[in-house]
C-alpha cells in the first residue's frame, strides 16, 4: 500500500499543480505536503523492508534492501528540496526573475521528476527502469533550462543529447542481458529477478560486452569520466533545489541500475571483470575531477565536479567489493546529504550575490551567517574531514582495496588530498573576508534555511551513529557485491 502511495502521490501532485491558478501558496502547499507524504510512505516501506526483506507489489514494483536505501535518499532529499523550493522560488519571484507560470511549470516537472526516480528504483523490469531513467532526463531538461538564458539552454541541450546517446547504449546492453531469459522462453515482462536466475546462461563474451555497454550507458547518467561532460553544465545551470536532486539523488538512482546489472554479470562471469572496470572508471573520475576542481572558477561547477569525484569513489568502493561495497553504499548516503546541503546553501548564496563566480563572492559568513556555517560544514563533510562519516567510508573503501589495488589506492589518496586543497582554497575565499560590494546582512527566510539545517543535522547524526537495523539493511543490500 505504502509503495502504491509512493507512486501515486507525485502523480497526483503533478496533476493538481497543473490546475492551480494564480496562487503560489497552493503550489507550495501541494509540493510540501506531497513530498512529506512520500517521505512517510517511503519510511514505512523501508521499515517493512528492514523487518521482512523484499517488498513486492503486483509484480510490477518491488523494493529490496538496495532499493530501500535509494528510495529513502530520494524521499529525504526530495522532501527537503521541495520545501526549500517553495522559499527559493518565492525569492526569485520577488526579485522578478520568474513569473507564476514558470513556478507552476517548475512544480509540475519537479513532481514528475520525483515520480520517475521512484519508478526507476522500484520497477521490476529493466526495460521499465530504463524508460523511467530516460523519463528523468526528459522531465529535468526543462528544469535545467529553467532560467531560459542561453547558457542554461545550452546546458539542457547537452544534457539531453549526451544522456540520450548514453542511455541508448545502455538500452542496447539491456537487450543483450535479456537474451537468456528470452531464449528460455519467458513471456511478457522480464524482471531483474528473472535476469538474475538466468544469468548463468549468459555467454561470457556477451556478458562482458553487455556490461561494457551498460557501464557506459548508465555511467553517462552517473557521471563517470569520460562520459561526465554534461554534468558540470547541467548541475551548475539548474535551480539550486534541482541541482541538489540531480547531484544528490539522480546519480545514485542511475548507479543503482548499474549495480543491478553488475550482480547479474557477476553471476555469469565472476566479479573480477566488473570490479576492474569500476575501479578503472572510479580512479579516472576522481583524478580528472580533482584536477579540474583545483582551479575551478565557479562554485556551482565546483560542486558538480565534486559529484563526479564522489561517484568515482563509490565506483571504486563497489569495484573493490566486500567491505568496500558496504562503505560505498554508506558513502552514497553521506554524499547525497552533503551535496544537498552544499547545493542548497549555494542557492542561498547565488540569490544573495547574483553570481556563480567564486571571485565575486566573499564574506558569506558575515552576509549570510547561517548559510555560511552550513556551507562550511558541507565543505568539511564533502572533502572527507572527520568527524564526518565520509572520512570513515573513504578510509574503509581504501582499506578494502589496499591488498589488491595498492597503486590505485595511492593515486586515490593523493588526488583526494588534491581535492581537499582545491576545495579549501575556494571555500575559504567564499566564506571569509568581507564582501566587495556592500549588501544587507541576514538570511532571507526560514524556508531556505531550515531544510538545509535538517539535512546537515541528519548528516551529523548518521556520521556518528547508524542504527543497527539500518546497518543490517546496508549489509543485506551489499551482500552480493
Amino acid at each position, binding site marked *: 500500500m505504502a509503495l502504491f502511495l509512493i507512486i501515486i502521490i507525485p502523480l497526483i501532485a503533478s496533476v493538481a499543480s497543473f490546475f492551480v491558478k494564480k496562487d503560489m501558496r497552493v503550489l507550495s502547499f501541494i509540493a510540501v505536503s506531497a513530498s512529506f507524504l512520500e517521505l512517510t510512505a517511503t519510511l514505512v516501506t523501508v521499515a517493512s523492508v528492514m523487518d521482512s526483506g523484499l517488498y513486492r507489489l503486483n509484480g510490477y514494483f518491488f523494493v529490496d534492501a538496495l532499493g530501500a536505501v535509494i528510495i529513502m535518499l530520494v524521499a529525504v532529499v526530495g522532501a527537503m528540496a521541495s520545501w526549500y523550493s517553495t522559499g527559493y522560488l518565492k525569492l526569485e519571484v520577488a526579485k522578478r526573475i520568474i513569473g507564476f507560470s514558470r513556478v507552476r511549470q517548475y512544480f509540475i516537472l519537479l513532481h514528475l521528476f520525483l515520480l520517475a526516480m521512484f519508478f526507476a528504483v522500484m520497477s521490476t523490469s529493466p526495460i521499465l527502469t530504463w524508460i523511467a531513467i530516460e523519463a528523468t532526463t526528459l522531465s529535468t531538461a526543462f528544469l535545467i533550462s529553467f532560467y531560459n538564458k542561453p547558457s542554461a539552454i545550452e546546458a539542457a541541450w547537452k544534457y539531453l543529447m549526451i544522456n540520450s546517446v548514453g542511455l541508448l547504449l545502455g538500452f542496447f546492453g539491456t537487450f543483450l542481458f535479456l537474451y537468456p531469459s528470452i531464449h528460455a522462453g519467458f513471456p511478457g515482462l522480464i524482471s531483474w529477478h528473472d535476469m538474475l536466475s538466468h544469468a548463468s546462461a549468459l555467454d561470457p563474451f556477451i556478458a562482458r560486452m553487455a556490461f561494457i555497454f551498460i557501464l557506459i550507458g548508465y555511467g553517462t547518467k552517473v557521471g563517470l569520466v569520460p562520459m561526465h561532460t554534461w554534468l558540470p553544465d547541467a548541475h551548475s545551470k539548474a535551480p539550486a533545489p534541482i541541482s541538489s536532486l540531480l547531484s544528490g539523488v539522480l546519480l545514485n538512482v542511475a548507479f543503482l541500475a548499474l549495480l543491478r546489472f553488475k550482480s547479474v554479470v557477476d553471476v555469469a562471469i565472476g566479479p573480477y571483470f566488473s570490479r576492474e572496470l569500476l575501479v578503472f572508471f572510479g580512479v579516472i573520475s576522481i583524478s580528472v575531477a580533482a584536477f579540474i576542481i583545483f582551479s575551478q572558477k565557479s562554485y556551482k561547477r565546483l560542486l558538480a565536479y565534486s559529484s563526479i569525484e564522489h561517484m568515482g569513489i563509490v565506483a571504486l568502493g563497489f569495484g573493490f567489493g566486500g567491505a568496500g561495497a558496504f562503505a560505498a553504499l554508506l558513502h552514497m548516503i553521506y554524499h547525497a546529504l552533503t551535496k544537498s546541503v552544499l547545493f542548497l546553501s549555494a542557492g542561498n548564496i547565488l540569490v544573495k550575490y547574483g553570481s556563480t563566480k567564486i571571485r565575486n563572492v566573499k564574506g558569506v559568513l558575515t552576509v549570510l551567517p547561517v548559510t555560511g556555517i552550513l556551507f562550511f560544514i558541507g565543505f568539511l563533510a564533502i572533502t572527507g574531514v572527520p568527524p564526518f562519516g565520509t572520512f570513515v567510508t573513504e578510509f574503509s573503501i581504501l582499506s578494502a582495496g589496499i591488498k589488491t589495488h595498492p597503486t590505485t589506492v595511492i593515486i586515490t589518496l593523493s588526488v583526494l588530498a588534491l581535492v581537499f*586543497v582545491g576545495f579549501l582554497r575556494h571555500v575559504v575565499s567564499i566564506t571569509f573576508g568581507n564582501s566587495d560590494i556592500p549588501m544587507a546582512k541576514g538570511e532571507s527566510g526560514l524556508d531556505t534555511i531550515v531544510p538545509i539545517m535538517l539535512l546537515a543535522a541528519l548528516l551529523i547524526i548518521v556520521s556518528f551513529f547508524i542504527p543497527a537495523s539500518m546497518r543490517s539493511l546496508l549489509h543485506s543490500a551489499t551482500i552480493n557485491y
Partner: protein
Amino acid sequence: MFNTLISSNIFFLSLLLWIAGAVGALVLSKNDRLANWWGNSFAILGSCVGLLFSLSVLIIGSTFSFNIDSTLPLLSLSFSVDKLSAFFIFLISLIALLASIYALGYVKHYYKKYNIGALGFFYNIFLAGMVMVVSAHNALFFLIVWEIMSLASYFLVIYENKEKENVQAGSLYFIMTHVGTAFITLAFLLLYRSTGSLDFGVIKETIGNSSPLIADTVFILALIGFGTKAGIIPFHIWLPNAHPAAPSHVSALMSGVMIKTGIYMFIRMFMDMLPDAPLWWGVVILILGAISSLFGVLYALTEHDIKRLLAYHSIENIGIILLGLGSSLVFWSLDMKPLAVLSLVAALFHTLNHAIFKALLFLGAGSVISQTHTRNMEEYGGLIKYMPQTALFFLAGSMAISALPPLNGFFSEWMTFQSLFSGIMASNVPVRWVFILAAGSLAFTGGLAAMCFVKAFGVTFLARPRSENVRHARESGFALRVGMAVLAALTLVIGFTAGSITNAVSGVVSDLSAFNSSEPAFFSTIQTVGMRNGFASISMPLILASLIVTMALTFFAVYLVSRNRKTKIGRTWDCGTTLGPRMEITATGFSNSIVTIFRGALKPTKQTSIEYRDEDMRYFQKSSTVELGIQDIYNRYFYQPVHMLTIKASEYMKRIQSGNINMYVLYILAILIALLFASGM
C-alpha cells in the same frame, strides 16, 4: 582492578568536562562574559582531572585500555594509556591548565569583536582532541581524533578571521596538515595490508612477519605525515604562519604541545609498533633534526614579528628533540639499549621543557600584544618598566630556551649532548660523522638561540619605547600573570629537580616494551645526573646554589667596599645629540650581521625604492624606503614549483571540458570502442 576503574573514570571525566565546556560555551555564546567563564572554567577543570589521571598512571604505573565498538565499519573507539601516553597527557593537561587560567583574562580583549562561544567551543574540543590523539589505540579512530584536533586548531588559527593573513595562514596550515594526514593514512593502510588490523596492539604483534620494505615505507610515510605536524624542516612552512595567527594562549598550546603529538607518534610508531629499526631510520631523523634546529633558529633570527620568531624556535626545538630521538633509534639498531634509553629520555625531557618554556614565551608575547596591539617588535621597547612582571617571566622563558643554566632548558640540552657524544664515541665511521655534525649543529643552535633571545628580550623590554603603543601599556591582568608565573617557576623548579624528573622520565621510557629490561646508560639522583661510564656528570642543584651563594657574596662584598658611594641617575650618554627611539638598535639591525654571514642559506633580499621631489632632476629625495626580506628557500624551490605544476596540470585537464558537444560524444564512442577492444583481447 580498582585502579583501572578509577583511572578510566577519571580519564573520561576529563574528556567529558572538556566536551561540556565546549557545548556550554557555544550555548552561552550570546553572553561574552559567561561564555568565557564557562569555556575556560571547564577547560581548567578538565585539565586538572587530566593532570590527576596522568599522574596516577605515571606513579601507579597501571596501564589502562578501553574499547567501544562503533556503528561504523572498521572503527572502534579504543583507548589505551600506557606511561608514554600518560606522559603526553600530563604535558597537555599541564600546559592546558595554565593556558586556560591565562585565557580567563586574555580572552577579554575579544569581547564584542569575535564570538567568544566559538572560541570556547573549539578550544575545549582542541584539548579533548589532543588527549584522545595520544591515547587512541586504533588507527582509524586515531586518524579521526587527529583530524578533529587539526580541525579545531584550524578554527582557532582563523579565529580572528577579519584579518586576511590569518585566514591565509589557516588555509596553509589546514592544507599541510591534511596532506600530512594523507601520508599517515597511507602508512596505516599499508600496515593494515600486511597485518589485517587497525588495532595498534595487533599491528605491533604481527608486523614482524612482514617484509622490511613495508616497515621502511611506513617509516617514510609516517616521517612525512607526522613530521608535517611536528614542523620538521622542510615540512614546516605552515608553522610560522599558523602559530602567530591564533590567540596567544592557543599559540602556546599549539607550539607547546600540539606539535609534540607528532613526536609522540614518532615514538609510538618507530619505537613501539614497528619492528626493530634499521640504522638508516635513526640517521635520517638525526639529519632532519640537525637541519631543523639550525635552520629553525636562523630563520627565527630574521624575524621581527615576535610570535613568528617564537614559532621558528619551535621548529628549532623540535629539531633538538629529534636529535635525541634519532640517536635513540641509532643506538637501538646498533643494539646499545642503555644509550638508546639515555637518548630517548633526553628527547622526552626536552619535550617537557620545551612545552613549558615555549608556552611561557607565547603567553608572555600574548600579554605584550594585548597591551600594545601589534606583533611587530620594532614598535616595542622599554616594556620592562610598564610590565615588570611579564618581563621577568619572559626573561625566565628566554633563558630557559637559550639553554642557560640553571634553568630547565639547559639540562635537557646537556642530556642531548651526552647522547650525541656517546654516539660519536660508540659508532662506526659514517655514522660517527652524522653524530659529529649533529653535535656541531646543536652547539651552534645553542649560541644562535641565545643571540635570538637577547634580541627578542632586549628589543621588546629594554631601552626606551620605540612607539606610542608602548606608553599605553599596563601590567597585564591577574589571571594572565598567574598563568605565566607558574610556568616561569616551573622552568626553575624543573631545572633544579632535574634528577628526580629524569628518574620519572626514564620510568616512562622503560615502560616501552623495547626497553623493558635495559639498564639506562646514566644514573640519576636528586643531586646528580651522570653517565655510568663516568664520561660526564652534572648537578643542577649545585649550579643553582653556587650561583645564588656567589651572587650573594659578591653583592655583600661590593656593598662592604663601596657602601659610602652615591649613585646618580643621569641621561644615557648621547655624544651630545638628543637620543630618539630611532637611535636604538632595531630587531632587524641586531640580527643583520648573522643574516649577512649566513646569506648563502637565508638569501636575504633588499629592495630600495626612492621617490624624488622632481622626477626630471632626480636630485632631491622625497622619501626612500628599503625593504629587507628573506627568501624561504623551501618555498621557492619546492612548494612553489609543486603549486605551479598542479595548476598547469589542472589547466591541462580543463581542456577535456571544451564545450564542444561533438567532442563529448566522441569521448563516449572512443571509450566504448577502447573497452570493447580491451575486453576482446
